[in-house]
């Protein structure tokens, strides 16, 4: 403790002595620690971005599991932040922002190549797109939209549904006939009405891998699933129609090491390069934010990609602000519904 304090005050004194007030005067560090959820996408990023990035800049990137706002909060409480970037879901950006944990994204320093506007936020950069979509066994009757999807009379069978309010309630509202363009503010009563109606035919899934498994085992005939999990699975048909398009983000915490922050901007720039995104897309169908990616994607699997122009235009984006503003109500209703069933 004492030692740390001493170091910190020395560092502070040194900083003051050098008169460093402008962060840009700091050279990028030679190492960059990133907190994220790990998994297939990060493995692909390690191959397609981290490796060439190291060749080019000499900056060694390491990833630490997990990321997310919970870890960031714990770090802020303990007073020591390691890592210049944290991954996060859409909803987490608003939370982290409200708690004042985030540094603004320095778009000038990232100097991005062309990217979708929705991926470019003040406090976060969207680096991979994913969708939540309907999927069904190819031998079951195909639903055309979510009203049909939730119609257990004309489309009999079990439904495997995500056990996450943000990923099910909007679809349940669509299932009660709410039009897509009036989805937000979300009508919770209508959403829960749908869930109540099909209760006996519901199997809730927790882990993303469960949805395709339940379909392939014929335990469920219909599922709402993350696109990357069901796309290209044998015996499973998917549709992006009325699907929810979303992104995984990177956020920068206040209080990270300034030199590492500089390295982080350079690394984020690599994410906007479409060749890099195409490389990642070979391994996992969660594409990056370039609007010019379609020609570089594997053409025989174009239909599996959330940002493929034909898929992108039939989907909607969630309203992170609404979720943030209504978090207490949603949580209360969800908790009641789930624990009382």
């Amino acid at each position: 403790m004492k030692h740390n304090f001493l170091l910190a005050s020395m560092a502070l004194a040194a900083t003051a002595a050098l008169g460093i007030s402008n962060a840009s005067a700091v050279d990028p560090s030679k190492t960059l620690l990133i907190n994220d959820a790990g998994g297939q996408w990060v493995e692909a990023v390690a191959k397609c971005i981290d490796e060439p990035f190291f060749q080019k800049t000499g900056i060694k990137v390491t990833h630490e599991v997990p990321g997310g706002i919970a870890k960031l909060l714990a770090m802020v409480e303990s007073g020591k932040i390691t890592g210049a970037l944290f991954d996060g879901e859409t909803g987490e950006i608003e939370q982290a922002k409200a708690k004042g944990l985030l540094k603004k994204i320095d778009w000038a320093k990232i100097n991005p190549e062309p990217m979708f506007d929705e991926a470019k936020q003040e406090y976060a950069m969207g680096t991979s797109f994913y969708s939540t979509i309907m999927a069904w066994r190819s031998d079951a009757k195909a639903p055309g939209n979510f009203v049909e999807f939730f119609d257990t009379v004309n489309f009999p069978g079990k439904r495997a549904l995500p056990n996450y309010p943000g990923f099910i309630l909007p679809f349940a509202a669509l299932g009660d006939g709410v039009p897509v363009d009036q989805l937000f503010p979300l009508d919770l009563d209508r959403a829960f009405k749908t869930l109540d109606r099909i209760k006996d035919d519901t199997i809730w899934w927790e882990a993303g891998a469960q949805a395709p498994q339940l379909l392939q085992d014929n335990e469920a005939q219909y599922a709402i699933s993350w696109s990357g999990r069901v796309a290209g699975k044998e015996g499973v048909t998917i549709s992006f129609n009325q699907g929810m398009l979303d992104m995984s983000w990177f956020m920068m915490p206040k209080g990270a090491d300034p030199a590492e922050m500089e390295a982080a901007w350079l690394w984020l720039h690599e994410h906007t390069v479409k060749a890099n995104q195409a490389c990642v897309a070979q391994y996992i169908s969660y594409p990056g934010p370039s609007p010019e990616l379609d020609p570089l994607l594997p053409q025989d699997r174009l239909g599996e990609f959330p940002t493929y122009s034909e898929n992108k235009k039939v989907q909607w984006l969630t309203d992170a602000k609404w979720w943030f503003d209504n978090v207490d109500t949603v949580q209360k209703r969800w908790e009641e519904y789930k624990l009382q069933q």
Partner: protein
Amino acid sequence: MTLASPTASGPARPVARRWSFTRPTEVTRILPLFILVVLCFDVPLLVALGWSVRDPKGPDPTLRHYIDFTTSPIYLPVVWRTIELAAIVTGFCAILGYPLALWITRLSAGRQLVAIGLVIIPFWISILVRTYAWIVILGNAGVVNRTLKELGLIEKSIPFLYNELGVAIGMVNVLLPFMVLPIYAAMLRVDSRLLHVAATLGASSFSIFWRVFFPITLPALSATMALVFILSLGFYITPAILGGGKVPLIANMMDMFINRLPRWELASAVAMTLLLVTLLLYAGYQWLRSRTPA
């Protein structure tokens, strides 16, 4: 059990030397484990205790989370459901486990080894795999339902899973070895001369069992039931998968408080309450065990 009795006959043991040599090594031997347990278990537990009385809006400790938890019309039913299910599971484990253990003790030595092996093998298989295996067997498109359909006995699949029945089946499956092994060990310790005496005195095999054998093994049975009951209070994976997300138990509720809603204070209060209940049950278990003949 007459260790180190001062009046024991025979040459005096080099007590002093043993002390000076063994004691420091014993301490150093357990020291790493002790530090590990304190750092990785006890300290976090105390932190959780701190969380459970923490007021997010002020510096003073509060009992609000405990009051929230115990007065809520939503949380308490989950606790009752957990207790009810734990009781059912414990009951079924006893009904299945006791006769099984008894049957094993009557086998030849070689067969006993095989039978115990068969009981233990599931221990080595991941609980996740065992849980999913039930979907293959009892699922809507599982072996049982498909067979019944092909035999023309049913039209629609019988819903074995994705309800409380499914959770109970999965839990009994996981907990059965915990029931069988201690009872089996206790049965082996029963002095067979007592049974012979009863037989010599003309007791029927039924009364030998009910009036001699069962009462001797009863303390072991009740202690083991207490143990199984404690274990079944903390199930998470089984209700999540075999309950189809529709049978939330205490652990699933805590998962919701920790991972879904940032309500760690409430989760800690639930955890502390569960810990207290478990400790009380454990005290009961130890008491029952102390009554088990050695």
